[in-house]
């Protein structure tokens, strides 16, 4: 079976590597993206099975990304946002726009794995 493709947008290289390491161990094919703009360009031509993205990124924020994915591309693929918590408004905004899940930093990789698995399964059922 072809491994599920994930796009991971996170501009902290250490966190990104850690998450990639764990997601790949779980059997996913992970493409690292340096910023939101890169993700936008990537998904314009090819949609992955799910997107994991930091909220605060240069050029194109995670929130904008959700908006673009849902309202421009009209895609329903799972998108999970991660961010330094505390900003309630951001979280609510993200959900309103149609993000599937939200994790506060520092992200526990194990928790992220469970959530990614769950969202991908759900998406397949639908």
């Amino acid at each position, binding site marked *: 079976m072809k491994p599920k493709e994930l796009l991971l947008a996170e501009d*902290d*290289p*250490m966190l990104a590597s*850690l998450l990639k390491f764990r997601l790949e161990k779980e059997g996913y094919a992970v493409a690292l993206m340096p910023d939101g703009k890169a993700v936008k360009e990537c998904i314009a031509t090819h949609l992955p099975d799910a997107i994991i993205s930091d909220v*605060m990124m*240069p050029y194109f924020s995670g929130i904008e990304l959700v908006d673009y994915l849902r309202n421009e591309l009209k895609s329903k693929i799972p998108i999970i946002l991660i961010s*330094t918590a505390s900003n309630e408004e951001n979280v609510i905004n993200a959900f309103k726009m149609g993000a599937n899940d939200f994790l506060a*930093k*520092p992200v526990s990789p*194990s928790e992220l794995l469970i959530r990614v698995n769950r969202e991908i399964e759900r998406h397949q059922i639908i």
Partner: protein
Amino acid sequence: MDTRELLMHLSKLENGLDTYSFTELNTKEANRLKKSFESFKNGLEEKVFGMPKPEPVEVSLKKTTTKPPEEHTMIAKVSHEIRTPLNGIVGFIDLLKETTLGPKQQELVNALDTASGNLMNIINELLEFSKLASGHDTFEKVPFNLKNLITEVAFLCETLITDSKVELCVHLDKNLPEQLLGDPSKLSQILLNLVGNAVKFVEKGKINLEAILKSDQQGKVYIEFIVADTGIGIANNKLQRIFESYRQAEDDTQLKYGGSGLGLSIVKEIVDRMDGLIAVKSALGAGSTFKVTLPFEKARQQDITSPRRPIKSVPRSLKHAKILVFEDNVLNQQLMENRLKSWGCQPFVTENGLYGLQLLENHEFDLVLMDLRMPKMSGFQITECIRQNKQDHIRNVPVIALTADLSITDREHCKKVGITNYILKPYNADELQRMMQELISESEKENKREISQITFDQTSSIVNLNLLYEECMGEKDTLAELVQLFKRNMYEFIGNVRMHLTNNDSRGIGFAVHKIKSSLKMLEAKSLAQICGKLAEASESAAYEALEKYYKQFLNEYPKVEEAIDIELNKL
């Protein structure tokens, strides 16, 4: 002789007269000649056609416009449409400049910046010209301070001079009246265009800007403005055509010096509409002299503000102060931005009320400068919105209104909507500086925060790799790799913050801190996380003193952390 022939002779004569006053001028005489010719012509036409012509409103030279008015309206519309997205582009380039860029990227962004700036200038000129030519532009009649205006123009032009071999000298006739009635923005446009041109065409030498009182009778004054340069000059046979639109002296002028070729026709058009005269004298290689004579009325004595002592040094409180400027006039925008930057402030200029209010939501500003008369949302309306905001720091921001004329009802209106203070345009720079300084230091006193030295709990460890080791599922190589990334992250952070500090870019610091926060938490680097917390806090209020201090603390602390990481890694 039939009427057609008569008219032909008449227009020939008129043309001859135009050329005459272009090349040699004693303005008073030329003016009188024009006027008498005008009345002669009108009288003649009256006799020939048997009906009175409408009273001559302006002493017009041959009209520079050849296009029908509808076409100018169209150009005005199109230029406006182009300007809006271009404004966006310029704004985004500014944002791009604030991000971390490599040297090559820096170079490209700078090129982008210059190109879009040039395009913006050309479009603004086009817009201005078509507005004038289609007759849509209105001329104001408000009191203004002539000396301040000329000082402003000189200040702005000095910022255009990039070569130290060029010098700008300003001479003001001491008999000039202080306060005049007229349109100050149109006058500054004329002067800016002429001096701006001189700056462009002079490689080495002097530019003189002179204002002379030519006559003063019954409250009406004629003032002559002379802009003389030692630049490349214009050949005699080209002189007569330089005021035509899209016309530059030489075919390669555009290539060498840029510009739309509209500058001088704009000047000519404005001078015409103000019932003034313009003339030029030039010799190739020796430079050009432009003379503009304009009529003004003297303002009443009561409007004259007393001159105050200038402030020599820029007070501390204005350095790094974030100022939001609402202003729709492009010249004033540029002027205000340059002025504020010269005081060390960080200006954000916009003509769009909603956009400005959005900026206030996202950034903490120290002060707002508000032009009262703006299209769409007026300064009063914007101020009302500010005062009704839920957030304290927005609601309480001081607002200084800038206005050309302030009526009594305006004054009451100011009070009602919560405008803190106001200043008349063209404003006296010292006065504005003093006012801003007072308001900013007042609000600073209220929320001054102590910069405290952080003391660390020495009993707890400054770093802990266990958590990360677990996440790596016991794979030591992965952990070592991550630690390597962490270190690189920190070096990058230190470099970035240093750069942002040099650039006074507190936002950049905030962003950099945000980027490393989660890594610090994962390694449980508590002391560094604590310093970063303080850095983030200080970056929000652009407290540079505090930022410097915490940055130094970070530099002191980091080597200890790195050492501890290496020791822990070896123990595993």
